[in-house]
């Protein structure tokens, strides 16, 4: 069944219509991706899902319940956690403190410690940098911190906003490899990406967004082969 379901969601910034009625669904345990050019409405979609902005019309349902009118922290508490765009980490806190902030909603000390250990195995680089101020890390490491911090909340679904942005090609590969690993552990993922080639190649299902509308959707592989997608995004 669909874990996350958007139907006919419209978002306005004042009078400008940023999302013109979007419908999409993400199956539990899968990776879905939303690709599109700058300004197509990808981040707006994520902000609507995580409760930072409220749609004017349409419904967003998570795990069967509607998210209408909920505050961001309530949505996080439901297990739907966002990894924000641009690796927005707490730059003056240490890596360790950033991870601790990720578990802000949790109270099970032992579970937190276990998850931390598990994540440090997934990101060995972070173990070396635990006491370092996060703002001094490299771009790739900051992305790791952002991802690990979100996972510390033990989410059932992760919303990832442009995780490959600004990273060197080799690091991009690593990021997508990590996403696959996280997904294999049972976390459902909605991935928003400009890097359509990489995103579609790991996604079970893809949606192409163009000026606030979904213009194409289908299994990731199929979209990769689609002539229109190739023409528009893959060059």
């Amino acid at each position, binding site marked *: 069944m669909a874990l996350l379901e958007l139907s006919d969601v419209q978002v306005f910034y004042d009078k400008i219509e940023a999302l013109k009625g979007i419908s999409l669904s993400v199956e539990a345990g899968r990776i879905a991706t939303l690709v599109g050019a700058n300004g197509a409405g990808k981040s707006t979609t994520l902000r609507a899902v995580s409760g930072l902005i409220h749609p004017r019309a349409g419904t967003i349902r998570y795990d069967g319940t509607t998210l209408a009118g909920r505050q*961001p922290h309530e949505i*996080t508490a439901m297990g739907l956690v966002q990894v924000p765009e641009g690796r927005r980490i707490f730059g003056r806190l240490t890596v360790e403190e950033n991870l601790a902030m990720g578990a802000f909603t949790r109270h099970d000390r032992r579970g937190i410690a276990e998850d931390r250990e598990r994540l440090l195995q997934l990101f*060995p680089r972070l173990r070396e940098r635990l*006491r370092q101020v996060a703002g001094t890390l490299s771009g790739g490491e900051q992305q790791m911190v952002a991802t690990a911090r979100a996972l510390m909340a033990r989410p059932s679904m992760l919303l990832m906003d442009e995780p490959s942005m600004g990273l060197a090609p080799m690091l991009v590969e690593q990021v997508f490899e990590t996403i696959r690993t996280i997904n294999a552990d049972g976390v459902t993922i909605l991935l928003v990406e400009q890097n359509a080639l990489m995103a579609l190649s790991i996604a079970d299902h893809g949606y192409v967004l163009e000026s606030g509308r979904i213009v194409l959707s289908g299994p990731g592989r199929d979209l990769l082969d689609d002539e229109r997608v190739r023409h528009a995004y893959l060059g």
Partner: protein
Amino acid sequence: MKTLTKAATTGLLFGVGGVYLALVGLLEMMQARPIVFGAVNLGQAVLALLALACGVVAARDAGPAFARAGAGLLGGLVAGALMALLQVIVATVPLQGMFIAASPALRNMLAFGFAPGPGALAMLLGGGIGGLAGAVLAVTLPSLRRAIVAGAAAVVIAGVFQELIQLMMQYEGIIGWIRDFVYTWQGLRPQGAVAIFVIAGGTSLVLSHRSSADHVPSPDERRRRRFISAGVALLVLVLMPLLAGAYIGEVLMLVGLYILMGMGLNLEVGLAGLLDLGFVAFFAVGAYTTALLTSGSSIGLLHLSYWEAMPIAVLISILGGVLFGLPVLGVRGDYLAVATLGLGEIVRIVVLSDFAAPLLGGPQGVLDIPKPSIGSFELGSPVKLFYLTLVCAGVAAFIAWRLENSRLGRAWEALRDDEDVAQALGVNLIRSKLLAYGLGAAFAGLGGSIFATMLGSVYPSSFQLLISINVLALIIVGGMGSLPGVVLGAIALIGLPELLREFGEYRYLFYGAALIVMMRWKPEGLWPSEVRSRELHAAAGEAEPVAAMEPG
């Protein structure tokens, strides 16, 4: 050539600074305060300091020793020339119509008592010698330099605050003997100055020798040292009014109130990052609530005792803080500062208005507020109330410290860094922000409550915008987000100017200069919080060396 230009420019800069100090009247005013009686006064010391500092700055990065000396000399000469020129102009042109401070007394001071011609020469020479000395000081061994600076600073403190220190030494026996050796009733004796210089300088030498021979202190050790110095500071605070009398008690009382407010605003600005310029409103709420609940006049509502009214005042302040926070929940940064500025003024104007006058007394205020008493012991004097403030500040500090390390504290810090991300991690934005306003207001309300009983009356005019600005300035100077910083900031910005009360009008000059100097050279404050200094150093591109020590 470049060195020379730089030295000359530095000299010009310091010279202009000196001329400025002279023309606003500060130099002449400082002249009235002796350091060593009959020998050196504060005005002369400031002149000397200007020349020395000019030499130090001019000689910086000037290369080999002789070049440095030359640069210092040139800088000092240029600065001295400007001052000499001022003196000659004051002597020949009647300037007092424009600059009231350009008096014969000022001329006399700038000429060291000589006639205009020889006086100018003396000033020029003095500037040169001062500059040269500054340059030499800049190239001497750091430990020796530190010793000289420490010695000089000790003499200045002992001289400027002689009245106060003598008050504290009103004993017979050994203390009396020391007092008579160091001071006459008018001020510091030359022999006392020499003794203090030698002792302070020597102590500094010994200390710096020991610490350089030792290892670099570990973070643990540094923390322990900080705790010890904080303990000593507390002890001094407790004993000070006993030793130094009522006036110091009053000053400390004021400092204590500002510490309370500073701790409150520190929660809002330092931790939660909510720049609040209307903070005085909460102070007013606390004061007025206390006044209305306890006042014996016709406007008083319940005629409660102070102890009954204080907790209610704090609660009402919290409520006020939450109400204050509601309209500005979605406002960030600069906009928040302006919005809170408006809210703060609204509170003051409402209190002042005819509309609220039947309840709040309008411009006439509320009179006849009783003093608190324990049993039959009334806390009547400022000194006794100071101890009440100290206890309240201690409790408040403990609460603030616990808050800082709590979940709520972490939520605030996360919100301060990035509201969206903090929410995405599960921080309840509305509750956290309202709690920041409410708890911050509780501290200020407590301060206001004590303020009301201290004065025995409250008036709208006591709650000016300037108080908000003072509180903000003291936490910035002390170090954002740092509790000891609040204490240091309050002492430096509220206590010291109060002690130098004859410079009252120039307090804001001191303020401004202190703020600029702090922001330029020590933006993290006098006693920075760990996170804050990290942030500033990270911004400067200094990676922490800790990472290398962690096992992989």
